[in-house]
């Protein structure tokens, strides 16, 4: 019967993944949103299922949360920009200049850091940026010093951590560019810089945007790197962690967690117009 009814077959094939997406993924998000509308008993710490917008009122009226939200968005944007600037030349070299052999080596070396633990890499930067670390040692003869632990250290560490997520989509996007376009551009009298600016970058832009979705969203949600190299700084993730992990105030943590979700949805909506989502 299934053979004769392709609709049914497709339906059966798609049901489990759709259930997974709907129940486990979107369901969890919905549960989060619902939780943010509840409150918590001060004595027992248990959740009280009475509808209230109190958590969101706190979120919007207490200044510190706005400051933290803006800081988080700023850091995520800065990390994204730094990664684009670093990743683009590397990806261009990998895709268009390097020999096939070198290309393979480069792809592997970009991927290799991804196999190392996130924590190891973050702690490596903690050592690098320490007062007696390598950066201070190199900078001292020039009268400079390590930036120390703080937001600059967070930006450096996150940029390092998410760089492969930017290089790979940009590399994939550039590799798809036919070489003939470069030749045509040169034949029409464009120099290398003009070709890059008028031909390569516009065509690679969706790939850059695709990469930025990774770097931006990963930075928006990060709280561990901040704990390790962030000094006294804190981002949205830390507020969620402190409210859930320490204060056990799940409803407020859920309310805070909706902020990055809203920011990412806005970002994705903007990005959709560039066609970058087709490059993912």
């Amino acid at each position: 019967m299934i053979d004769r009814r392709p609709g049914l077959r497709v339906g059966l094939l798609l049901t489990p993944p759709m259930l997974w997406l709907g129940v486990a993924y979107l369901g969890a998000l919905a549960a989060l949103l619902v939780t943010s509308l509840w409150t918590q008993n001060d004595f027992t710490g248990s959740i009280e299922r009475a509808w209230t917008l109190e958590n969101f009122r706190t979120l919007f009226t207490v200044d510190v949360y706005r400051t933290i939200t803006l800081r988080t968005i700023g850091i995520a944007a800065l990390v994204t920009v730094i990664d684009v600037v670093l990743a683009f030349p590397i990806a261009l070299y990998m895709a268009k200049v390097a020999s096939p052999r070198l290309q393979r080596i480069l792809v592997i070396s970009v991927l290799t850091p991804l196999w190392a633990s996130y924590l190891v890499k973050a702690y490596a930067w903690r050592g690098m940026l320490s007062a007696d670390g390598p950066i201070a040692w190199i900078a001292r003869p020039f009268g400079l010093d390590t930036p120390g632990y703080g937001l600059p250290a967070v930006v450096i560490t996150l940029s390092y951590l998410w760089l492969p997520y930017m290089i790979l989509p940009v590399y994939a996007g550039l590799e798809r560019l036919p070489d003939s376009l470069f030749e045509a551009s040169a034949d029409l009298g464009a120099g290398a810089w003009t070709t890059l600016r008028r031909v390569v970058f516009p065509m690679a832009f969706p790939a850059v945007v695709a990469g930025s979705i990774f770097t931006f969203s990963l930075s928006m949600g990060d709280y561990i790197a901040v704990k390790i190299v962030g000094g006294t700084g804190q981002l949205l993730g830390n507020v969620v962690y402190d409210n859930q992990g320490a204060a056990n105030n799940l409803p407020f943590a859920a309310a805070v967690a909706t902020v990055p979700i809203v920011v990412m949805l806005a970002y994705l909506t903007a990005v959709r117009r560039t066609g970058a989502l087709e490059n993912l």
Partner: protein
Amino acid sequence: MRRNPTKRLAALACAGVLALAATACGTSSGDGGGDGGPKADEKQGGFTAPDVPMTDAIGDPEGQVNILAWPGYAEDGSTDKSVDWVTPFEKESGCQANVKYFGTSDEAVQLMKTGEYDVVSASGDATLRLIAGGDVAPVNTDLLTNYADIAPFLKDQLFNSVGDQMYGVPHGWGANLLMYNTDVVKPAPTSWSAVFDDASTYAGKVTAYDSPIYIADAALYLMKTQPDLGIENPYALDKDQLAAAVDLLKAQKGNVSEYWSDYLKEVQAFKTGDSVIGTTWQVIASVAQGEGAPVEAVLPEEGATGWSDTWMISSKAKNPNCGYLWMDYITSPKAQAAVAEYFGEAPANTKACELTSDKTFCDTYHAEDADFASQIWYWTTPISQCLDGRDETCTDYGEWTTAWTEVKG
């Protein structure tokens, strides 16, 4: 989770840091302040414990006991072959010990509510919640041969008793000390002012503890230096007092290099010189010294905050006899010496001091020093009912969490 020395520290961190994590708890606090504060019943105000019967006698062992403990409190040699005080208990008592470690006081309270566990090592912010919830039974201390040897200043405290009735056996305690780099910080600090009013001397090199409960450290300092604020108990702050503590912490923040909640992070920061002064635990100071860092830890003249843990027995215990045998065993001098040395805290049973492998251990941890202990304000979760008995509304832990977020900005 039970493999290496790092985890041993993790155990301490759990006991220390996460002990605070609970949102709510009953009334109480250590009667610190050095004036030998009132006994439990005078300060507990309207707090009454549910009527839970107490055992009269220890019967035949049931053959097993389910233990809920902070990591490192019930080691059976699986972490380190030489670290084992559970196996001797099993041989001695005939009770098979099933140990479950928990990570936070919240988790402990939730697990105890299941009734699956017979005994629990509860910190000061979990104990009264367990008592109030009827989850633990009063402890008949007459049945415990080692109870008499427990340091008297740990008995009948606000966090382990109601009225004159003990609800557990004290296990061990420790203070949050002031650690400093002896090469950089001169002269040696004697007051918490070194990290508050005078923090700018070491601008960018001060460290502080990353938890809302650290507000109590600021409140303790204000209690001693600004009597006008009327702070009687650093865990009972009204809105104005909390605001004053927050202002102090905000001013401190400008000089802070980083906040620590991971003790290893602090050890490393002191080794590298990223931090030169700040709050610490004795075990962190010992580890840092062991790794060659030029550090010293002192109890400043204002006193300090700290933690104190208690073994409690479940009101629904399926193996109450083995539970009592365990509570008696774990507070015996030999077991106490082993736990305290492994974990890095002062043993409650001071007879343990003769049995520690490091003969100066108890001196280092001030285990027999009642004066030292009386200067400690044991961690307690702030609740809206003022813990110092004032007829006002105090700020609760949720507000402290918000305040801490504001301090960090």
